[in-house]
């Protein structure tokens, strides 16, 4: 393969990896908004928390895989606490007040993270099993990045099967269209909300673990990612998983191909897309979302 086309192939693949990561992060936001109608500003901070926890666990035990299993559970437990003590008391208040509250939570979580781990960046090594590179048709690409794409696809499929094919998934989907009716039918919706919020937070933690070996883990990790996740959330139509998949893959490509063509301004493109969608198609590019009345 000649140098030029190799460059473009790697850009497209990098876009796929970025998109998959964004998809995993935004899944959590999407589920939480879809069911609880909460835009969780603290999501990026939980993602960063996940990355830091992964850094510590791999440094102590040398087991990346242990971190991959353990961290989502820990972050989900943090999510349970947040839902119980901060989100639930806000149920009678407006969506926008809850958004402001989660912004305050983001400040707190970021600062606690900094308190525990300090400001110095951490590095998480790529797990040994995946540290090599794969060569396909004479084109070489790091194995770990391919693993991310595969894992993302698997998780998306699992989430889809969970929501569409299991009883609990059916209840969750029902609650997302009308929580009151679901409650009347004898489902404990407040427990359901807690579970969904914890699931969303767990996904944030998981994304943090997966992203950690690709970058240095630093204090601004959460602030850097949250706005991108919001872009994907909006483009996908707030609350739609299918929309999130498409939007994340699109944003990944826009970022990476944009970076190759207009270098520094590529993030402007995604923000312009976000603004345009909010104005013209508030229910997302594919018209799947829950945002229709502006509230």
């Amino acid at each position: 393969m000649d140098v030029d086309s190799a460059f473009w192939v790697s850009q497209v693949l990098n876009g796929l990896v970025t998109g998959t990561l964004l998809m995993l992060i935004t899944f959590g936001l999407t589920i939480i908004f879809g069911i609880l109608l909460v835009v969780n500003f603290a999501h990026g901070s939980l993602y960063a928390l996940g990355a830091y926890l992964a850094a510590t666990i791999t440094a102590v035990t040398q087991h990346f895989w242990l971190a991959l299993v353990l961290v989502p559970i820990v972050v989900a437990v943090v999510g349970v606490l947040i839902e119980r003590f901060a989100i639930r008391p806000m149920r009678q208040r407006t969506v926008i007040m809850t958004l402001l509250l989660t912004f305050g939570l983001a400040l707190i979580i970021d600062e606690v993270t900094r308190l525990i781990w300090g400001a110095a960046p951490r590095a998480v090594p790529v797990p040994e099993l995946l540290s090599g590179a794969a060569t396909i048709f004479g084109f070489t690409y790091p194995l770990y990045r391919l693993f991310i794409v595969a894992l993302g696809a698997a998780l998306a499929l699992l989430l889809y099967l969970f929501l569409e094919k299991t009883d609990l998934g059916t209840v969750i989907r029902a609650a997302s269209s009308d929580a009151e009716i679901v409650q009347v039918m004898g489902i404990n919706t407040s427990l359901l909300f807690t579970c969904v919020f914890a699931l969303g937070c767990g996904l944030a933690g998981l994304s943090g673990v997966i992203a950690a070996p690709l970058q240095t883990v630093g204090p601004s990790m959460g602030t850097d990612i949250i706005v991108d996740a919001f872009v994907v959330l909006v483009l996908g139509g707030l609350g739609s998983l299918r929309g999130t998949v498409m939007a994340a893959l699109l944003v990944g490509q826009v970022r990476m191909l944009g970076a190759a063509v207009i270098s520094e301004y590529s993030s402007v493109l995604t923000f312009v897309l976000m603004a345009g969608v909010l104005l013209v198609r508030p229910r997302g590019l594919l018209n799947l979302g829950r945002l229709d009345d502006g509230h």
Partner: protein
Amino acid sequence: MMGIKTVAIETMSARLQSMVAWLVRYRRYCLAAAVIVLALLPLFGLQKYYVRLVMEMLTYGLWAISLDIMIGFTGLVSFGHAAFFGLGVYSTAILITKTGVSLLPALLGGVALSLVAAVLIGIVIVRLSGIAFALLTLASSMILFTVFWRWSALTGGDDGMSVPRPDLKLPGLSLNMQADTSVYWFVLAMVLLGIYLAQRVVNSPAGAALVAIRENQARAECVGYNIFRYKLLAFTISGTLAGMAGSLYVIFQGFASPDLLHWSSSGQVLIMTILGGVGTLYGPFIGAGLIVLLQDKLSSLTEHWMLPLGLIFVLVIRFLPKGLLGMVRLGSQR
């Protein structure tokens, strides 16, 4: 135990209420006294550091008041208010460094540009409300942030830009502003002018219409108010005053940095406004003063000053949604 506690709280709140009632009755005198104290402040031999700190409180205060016009009086919560502050900062900074204008044109340029930007952005986005509006303001401010951050030929990019302080030149008069005390009076006068304008808007018939829209948009529409026009008016005034605050900020601070446009900066001013009390106009000014002071005091004690700030913010949202001044006003009306 509970009983004693309740009684203690009730006596305290009764005392607070009578104090507030007194403040409300004599508010004109209190206001006048506050202005006189602020004006005389540099004469007390205040250290240069504290003169700057007070100027920071004043400009952030005006910024928070401008946000209150949007949140408190129109019901639009913006997560991108840093955009207009930053536009004021950068247009004044660029005017001064590239054209060498004097103080007033530099300020006017900043105000004018943020006014134009507020009208243009407002026409597009005030049709939305709630979450969509918040996310849209976030997106539009991040567009501006990226442009100012990356356009290093004009703005110095990540490094920011140093801005020399120009003299105040009027026909037949030139005042040197290099001393912090001289620029202090200028900043104070302009901030008071801004607050006066905000006060006039809020107390005008248009201000009453804005509150009507906030309380019940459908009803206001039925009564015959043009919702879009009033919201655009509020958005424009809010953005212009924020730009004015930004211009004044860069004039005394002498430094412009793209961080001022970042969404976390919008978050800061939201905290100030909500802490002080949305819809009270003076509350956000007090909120801004408190936060600047708190940051100054706490950051000398610990580098983790965001933690108490975040905790306070969450507690205010949870338990005092009307903010400090809003709570006090409610108390005095009972």
